[in-house]
């Protein structure tokens, strides 16, 4: 076991983690722990853009952006946070430009902007050009630019270090965060990192689903670690399905394609979004477009041999627009489906894409232990966090924005806090839980396989907890997930070695996925209404009287303990235990909830 001491730890090196590191690294002694090389993070997959009311190509302002974000989130968005994000968006884009990000340019040489779903002029009058972009690799450019600036500032990285636990110490003033426990992939060694503050930026958990735009590595580790400490996860039932995944594969085709004029059509060639969102049509927010696509298929207007997808028609855009503004997605369709978007419509279907929920935080990125109280020293930013700026449905481009605005805020807050306090002592044997889990897994002889449990989890989640849900499907999903958790207790890994043992780590990641799937389904069962990314066939309307509030899921730990439990699978305390659901009020400032029409 190795021991390290820093002021600030950042866990995760995607957009949120590196944006935080650039701030913290210039203020305090900072280390970034990341299970992937920074440039492998899934922020690099983001395509379409990052919104900011720069008004470079047409009239726009941050108040319109705030309104769109609130309405897009079906009024579950915390309005104070949305306002901060929309205001600070402008500086966030300019910061990136100064760091060197090569945005596409207008003829005048300013940053070019394009349309995106749900972003409108003057409170819904028409689509507005608000998304700053770099072809269809905006996320790639953000990730590269942030990494380049980390190199410039000499930020210290621990690459291929998997953080598997956080350390909390009890003090007279309550619990404070004091460190993180990491597993070094190359050697199998456990490392204890002591710090004064810790920023979680571990991204999403799309791998609970089979059809997803998310990377294999997006297994929700940060949320899982947090939750296992008995700390809450907010709004877990709200998972976004992006309308245009390549059918059957889930690989994403950016909404920027529709921003450039591409059209969704059913098997009859009809532009069906005209029926569902007469004003902004194909550029309605994702929840509405995804639901509409599923309805088209359910009502028999799906295309293809099994009538199970619709088409994204880009043929009228012309080769020039596709090659210059959407080159990567053009190539994805060619490579993976053998279809050329220049001449043929592309088969698409909703794909699991983005977690609106996660670790509840304040607008300074401080992690919350309940509805109000923070855990001193603990911060979260990016997809792992829930501020909540996205409410029940995130607008396209608002995540790249979120990771920059709140990554920066969390980095600054974590460093300032670290500079104001001393190191707090670690508890005895801080790594005991992780050591126990790893050793149990390495020596386990049970008959269950990671790949089989994972496949079954993803299958039931795709069938029972995707775009449309009912009491019955969710109960089925909950039943399945709990049965899989039981089986997880008998999981065995084949690789018993220490070096690069990804077999073992996949088993650990699966444990997080199971926990998070259970949270998602459990919160979805309790929310008997339809709102944003959560559509209940049996409760088709939004119910503001009972459900205008955030859900908070807590793991009920036996006797309140968080130490290792010799009787639980892999020594994971309360792995099979219940979830306690609580609720948290939504923050309103200037917008009254209205019916959502586009």
């Amino acid at each position, binding site marked *: 076991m190795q021991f390290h001491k820093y002021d600030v730890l950042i866990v995760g090196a995607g957009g949120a983690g590196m944006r935080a590191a650039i701030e913290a690294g210039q203020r305090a002694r900072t280390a970034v722990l990341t299970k992937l*090389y920074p440039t492998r993070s899934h922020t690099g997959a983001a395509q379409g853009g990052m919104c900011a009311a720069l008004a470079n190509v047409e009239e726009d302002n941050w108040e319109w952006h705030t309104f769109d974000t609130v309405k897009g989130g079906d009024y579950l968005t915390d309005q104070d946070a949305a306002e901060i994000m929309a205001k600070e968006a402008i500086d966030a884009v300019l910061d990136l430009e*100064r760091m060197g990000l090569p945005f596409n*340019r207008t003829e005048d040489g300013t940053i070019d902007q394009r349309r995106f779903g749900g972003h409108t002029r003057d409170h819904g009058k028409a689509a507005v050009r608000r998304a700053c972009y770099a072809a269809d690799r905006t996320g*790639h450019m953000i990730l590269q630019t942030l990494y*380049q600036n980390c190199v410039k500032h000499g930020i210290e990285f621990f690459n291929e270090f998997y953080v598997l636990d956080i350390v909390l110490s009890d003090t007279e003033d309550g619990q404070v965060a004091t460190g993180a426990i990491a597993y070094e992939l190359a050697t199998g060694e456990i490392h204890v990192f002591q710090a004064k503050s810790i920023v979680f930026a571990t991204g999403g958990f799309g791998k609970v689903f089979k059809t997803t735009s998310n990377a*294999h590595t997006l297994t929700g580790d940060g949320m899982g670690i947090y939750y296992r400490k008995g700390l809450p996860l907010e709004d877990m039932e709200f998972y976004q399905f992006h309308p245009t995944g390549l059918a059957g594969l889930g690989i994403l085709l950016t909404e920027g394609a529709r921003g450039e004029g591409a059209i969704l059509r059913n098997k009859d060639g009809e532009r069906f979004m005209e029926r569902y969102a007469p004003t902004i049509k194909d550029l309605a927010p994702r929840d509405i477009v995804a639901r509409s696509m599923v309805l088209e298929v359910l009502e028999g207007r799906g295309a293809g041999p099994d009538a199970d997808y619709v088409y994204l028609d880009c043929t009228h855009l012309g080769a020039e627009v596709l090659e210059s503004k959407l080159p990567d997605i053009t190539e994805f369709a060619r490579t993976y489906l053998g279809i050329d978007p220049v001449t043929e419509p592309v088969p698409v279907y909703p794909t699991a894409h983005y977690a609106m929920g996660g670790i509840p935080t304040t607008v300074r990125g401080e992690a919350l232990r309940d509805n109000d109280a923070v855990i001193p020293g603990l911060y979260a930013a990016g997809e792992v966090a829930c501020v909540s700026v996205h409410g029940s449905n995130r607008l396209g481009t608002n995540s790249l924005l979120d990771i920059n605005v709140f990554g920066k805020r969390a980095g600054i807050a974590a460093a300032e806090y670290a500079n104001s306090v001393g190191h707090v002592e670690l508890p005895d044997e801080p790594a005991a839980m992780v050591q126990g889990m790893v050793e149990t897994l390495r020596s386990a002889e049970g008959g269950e396989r990671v790949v089989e449990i994972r496949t079954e989890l993803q299958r039931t989640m795709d069938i029972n907890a995707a775009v449309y849900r009912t009491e019955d499907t969710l109960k089925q999903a909950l039943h399945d997930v709990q049965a899989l958790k039981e089986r997880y207790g008998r999981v065995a890994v084949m690789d018993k*070695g220490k*070096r690069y043992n990804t077999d073992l780590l996949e088993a650990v990641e699966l444990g997080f996925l199971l926990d998070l799937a259970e949270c998602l389904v459990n919160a979805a069962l309790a929310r008997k209404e339809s709102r944003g990314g959560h559509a209940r066939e049996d409760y088709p309307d939004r119910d503001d009287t009972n459900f205008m509030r955030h859900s908070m899921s807590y793991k009920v730990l036996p006797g309140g303990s968080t130490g290792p439990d010799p009787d639980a699978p892999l020594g994971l305390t309360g792995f099979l235990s219940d979830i306690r659901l609580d609720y948290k009020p939504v923050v309103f400032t200037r917008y009254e909830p209205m019916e959502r029409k586009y």
Partner: protein
Amino acid sequence: MTSTAAVLDNTANTASEIPAPDGSVTVTVKIQRFNPEVDSEPHWESYDVPALPTDRVLNLLINIKGYVDGTLSFRRSCAHGICGSDAMQINGMNRLACKVLVKDLLAKKGKPTTITVAPIKGLPVMKDLYVDMEPFFEAFRAVKPFLISYGNEPSRERIQSPADRERFDDTTKCILCACCTTSCPVYWADGSYFGPAAIVNAHRFIFDSRDEGAEERLDILNDTEGVWRCRTTFNCTDACPRGIQVTKAIQEVKRALLFKRV
């Protein structure tokens, strides 16, 4: 320490437990294995696995790992060619395993298909397809891969015309996968050469109209480990999964050095 015993070359592991969907065919995947914890040197192992023509080679590796031999180790993340994790030699060529489809590797006329997979060359092999990426990233960091500017920061964005932006577009696409550098004969012969990926990333800034660090970078590249080592064999260009004109970029850097002008 225990580990699955190595099954040598010609006796293929049968993978009856991998689910075989309709339309799948059996292909043999022959993988160079090496675990320094138990092996004294690398060896080949073969696996007969069901594969759909539309499968990515990465899917086959994931299935082998999941169902047949969990000790098989390789990097992967995005699974669609944008994170740069899974560079490996596939049938002798540097490719991303998630961007090569089985249909493009099937033998003609229903003959049996063998797909060989080995780690990229020129970086130390740590285990199976895992290579040590540190030397690669070190070369990248050495060329100052970040925008350098002097004087006051502008309050708005810097102005850059679409034509100026276009000038370095190609080299902004790099995902640092190392396919190019580890296909370069000069790099194999002498690891102190920066390698094409580092030069591509220097190019990305040298030809960016907003950057003022061209001279510092060109000085670095003019060094004995620098661009002059390149013998213009185009391996790197052929290997790049992003379609970057790597050799052309290197030529442009050479020209900038010769004529002191970007």
